[in-house]
């Protein structure tokens, strides 16, 4: 039957346009779920959803951001079903975790740069894990995956201004948390 010819073309197009971003999808899923099996599952779900909705994707527009939007929505849907994570649409100035959040940059006489030099690779993920989802996702997208504000606004579905404020608060929190971890490792003395 001649109509069997088109799925192959569509599959190839999808692989060439969308599946090339699989690494980004996987890393983002890992940082959203903190669980390898769950991340793999989430990426599979997102890819299949993307494939089924591929006719809605406008060629020439940003496929990576489109895919991340689908991943994010699939993740949110799972959260609502499982509700195993605090879901903050905007955590505002709330403090979370054991470390209180101050504007680390204003702390005078604190050799913070030196402190952050001692951060171990796993620390960033450990610290990210304790950030509220709304802050974590903008940091993952902007700082770890290099998305623009405009793309992030599309993915997390909020105004660019909100992306900026979340980034600014999230980075301050993350910096503080990493400082705490470096101290924990004993690289920097508490009294410093």
């Amino acid at each position, binding site marked *: 039957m001649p*109509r*069997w010819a*088109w*799925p*192959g073309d*569509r*599959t190839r197009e*999808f*692989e060439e346009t969308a*599946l090339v971003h*699989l*690494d980004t*999808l*996987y*890393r983002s899923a*890992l940082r959203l779920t903190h669980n390898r099996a769950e991340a*793999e599952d989430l*990426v*599979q779900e997102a*890819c*299949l959803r993307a*494939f*089924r909705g591929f006719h809605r994707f406008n060629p020439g527009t940003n496929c990576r951001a489109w895919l991340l939007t689908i991943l994010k929505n699939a993740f949110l849907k799972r959260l609502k079903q499982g509700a195993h994570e605090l879901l903050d649409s905007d955590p505002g100035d709330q403090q979370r975790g054991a470390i209180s959040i101050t504007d680390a*940059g204003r702390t005078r006489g604190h050799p*913070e*740069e030196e402190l*952050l030099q001692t*951060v171990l*690779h796993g620390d*960033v*993920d450990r610290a990210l894990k304790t950030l509220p989802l709304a802050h974590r996702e903008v*940091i993952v997208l*902007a*700082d*770890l995956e290099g998305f*623009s*504000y405009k793309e992030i606004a599309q993915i997390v579905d909020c105004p660019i201004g909100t992306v*900026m404020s979340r*980034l*600014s608060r999230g*980075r301050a929190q993350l*910096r503080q948390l*990493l400082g705490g971890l470096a101290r924990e490792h004993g690289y920097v003395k508490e009294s410093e």
Partner: protein
Amino acid sequence: MNCIEFEARLHPYVDGELEMNEMAAAEGHVVQCAECRARVERERGFRQLLRRQPRESAPPELRAMIRARVRRSARLAAMRPVLVGTTAAAALLLVVTVLPSLRPTSSLVSDLVSKHVTYAQIEQPAEFVSQDPRAVETWFRQRADLRVTVSDYSPSGIRLVGGRLAEAEERKAAYVLYEKGHTLMSVFMVPVPARGADLSGTRVSYRGHDYLTLERKGYNTVAWTDGKTVFGLVSMLGYEALLECADRLRLDRAERFGA
């Protein structure tokens, strides 16, 4: 631009996200103000720290699995000619369930076609996957106490995929799934309701037996009943292939349980 104004733009400045004119103003301020310059350096350092994080790749097995599932999904999608019709069929089915008295005479066949279309869209249409007809029969017997005959059509190139329990006319039904190339064929066995089976279609005689044929949404269906069970075949395969399968099933059934 003063320090307070700059601080509000610190992050977009470092991220290169300011508009041209704002960027120039911010640049001007940074050149003059040592304190803000230090802030910028600090933010840049932090950004670099984050960028230095190892960038893990997706596992090759995940990539392979996704590619396989996407291809499968494409094949299944190609099997449903009218996607919009599925929703309409689902709506019809709902009305039918709520108002049984308005049931159209060929509702069972419509129902089976809808199910076929639905199953064709899911990743694993068979609950129990096996190419062994006896294994699938045993699964139905143990799982739902259904005496199901599963014919072997492999000589005609129609491969057994597996079985699934379905519900048709509010009764437990057996659904046996076959595949010829990329074309699915469903064989449903539904117990005849107490009020009798209402089947309609074009009466066709094939090797001495009567069947009802009906086309629904681009799918060919062949149905018959032995008084206790309604048998329905649904596929995009041609009538001749379906009738041959129906005849084989009828013979196998007679051999197993008596005519």
